[in-house]
């Protein structure tokens, strides 16, 4: 486990407020056929919040990108893989891929690859709560309320408490 420490130099905004801001960024560009797909596990929580805030009817998709990661050879299979569930036909649809943190872009790459194994979406857009920059792939977010540059030694972690409230914390990389 990563040892959690407080880092007074970095002010972490309220994650619930960021969710509301993210929803307002998406709202003007909402279309009837749009669906949300959250990336496990933080992205699923954010997608659930957006789903409620935007009053969307269609179910949320959930994906776990463990089977598509590029570090499988180096790190092995993630010890806790959760089932991906896409309860709608992606063919011809606009999907909003939702994650908590956009960083190197590798998770997003894996998620896009997985989504294409369900069919050919019309378009995929990316919504994230935080963008840490320092990309290693040509990927950018379409919707993002918070951009922050953090020391690479730090991990920005989103957690959800029992009442469903989201909260940011920082952890040292193991």
């Amino acid at each position, binding site marked *: 486990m990563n040892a959690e420490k407080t880092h007074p130099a970095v002010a972490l905004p309220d994650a619930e407020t960021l969710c509301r801001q993210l929803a307002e960024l998406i709202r003007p560009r909402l279309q009837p056929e749009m669906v949300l797909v959250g990336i496990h596990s933080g992205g699923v929580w954010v997608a659930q919040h957006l789903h409620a805030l935007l009053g969307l009817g269609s179910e949320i998709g959930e994906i776990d990108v463990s*089977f598509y990661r590029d570090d499988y050879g180096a790190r*092995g*299979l993630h010890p806790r893989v959760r*089932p991906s569930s896409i309860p709608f036909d992606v063919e011809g649809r606009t999907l909003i891929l939702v994650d908590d943190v956009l960083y190197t872009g590798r998770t997003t790459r894996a998620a896009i690859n997985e989504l294409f*194994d369900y069919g050919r979406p019309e378009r995929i857009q990316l919504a994230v709560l935080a963008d840490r920059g320092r990309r290693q792939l040509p990927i950018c977010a379409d919707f993002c309320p918070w951009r922050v540059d953090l020391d690479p030694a730090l991990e920005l972690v989103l957690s959800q408490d029992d009442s469903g409230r989201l909260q940011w914390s920082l952890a040292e990389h193991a």
Partner: protein
Amino acid sequence: MRNPQLNANGELTHLLSIDGLPREVITRILDTASSFLKVSHRDVKKVPLLRGKSVFNVFFENSTRTRTTFEIAAKRLSADVINLDVTRSSTAKGETLLDTVDNLVAMHADMFVVRHAASGAPHLIADHLRRLGREDVHVVNAGDGRHAHPTQGLLDMYTIRHYKQDFANLVVAIVGDILHSRVARSDIHALTTLGAAEVRAVGPQTLLPTAIEKMGVRVCHDLCSAVRDCDVVIMLRLQNERMNGALLPSAREYFRCYGLTPTVLALARPDAIVMHPGPMNRGVEIDSDVADGPQAVILPQVTFGIAVRMAVMGILAGN
């Protein structure tokens, strides 16, 4: 002594037997399998996990179902699969098991799926690979002699968990030729590790191994008392090839005493499930009315078997 299935970091690197596998490892394989099960329902039934890896199915003993499901599992992980019918080629020409392995390693094999009539053959290969310093090459036991058939045991556990959720209060009856059955051994190890309340073994005296009680099972010699109030009935195939010995009078008499009929099954709990590793001998160990009935989960076992084998290969190849 180090567990031969684990690498220096304590991670699962070979799957040789369920005996000695910690409960967390078994649970992790079953959890991972449930994610893989969904992959088989998609438009593209493949994930890129083992892309570029070569899986060699090395079967020294006949098998259709197990070999095919391993092949499908490896292909759904995007591996290249090479099936070797070794009994008809190199071994017939006199090559030793380890020479065959060395040749396949020289062809850059990443994983061996091995079935052999001799108990311990997959362990011998794993041990050989370690001495060669090739811990990056993995071995999956697809059935060795009377010893173990760990992926069958795991898929049986997956099936039971799918229908019964929890093992804590389960009563499981294993019926038939337990003496020759590697499936029975793997199931017994898995069920006791996962904490099943009671495992019963029933079969003719001649087909029960001596001292089987030491594996944590209750021995019954009468089918009705074994099936009564149980949650799961695991039928074993009566290995016809053993019928020539003096172990059994006749297939018909066997069916009369140990065949699962609707009347016998009615003694079990109403929601009991009936499993069979296949291939089935209808009218020998199982009545067609049971095999095709609503309590049989024999075909779902086959489907789950692919997901479980994907999980095993996916976990091993990453360690």
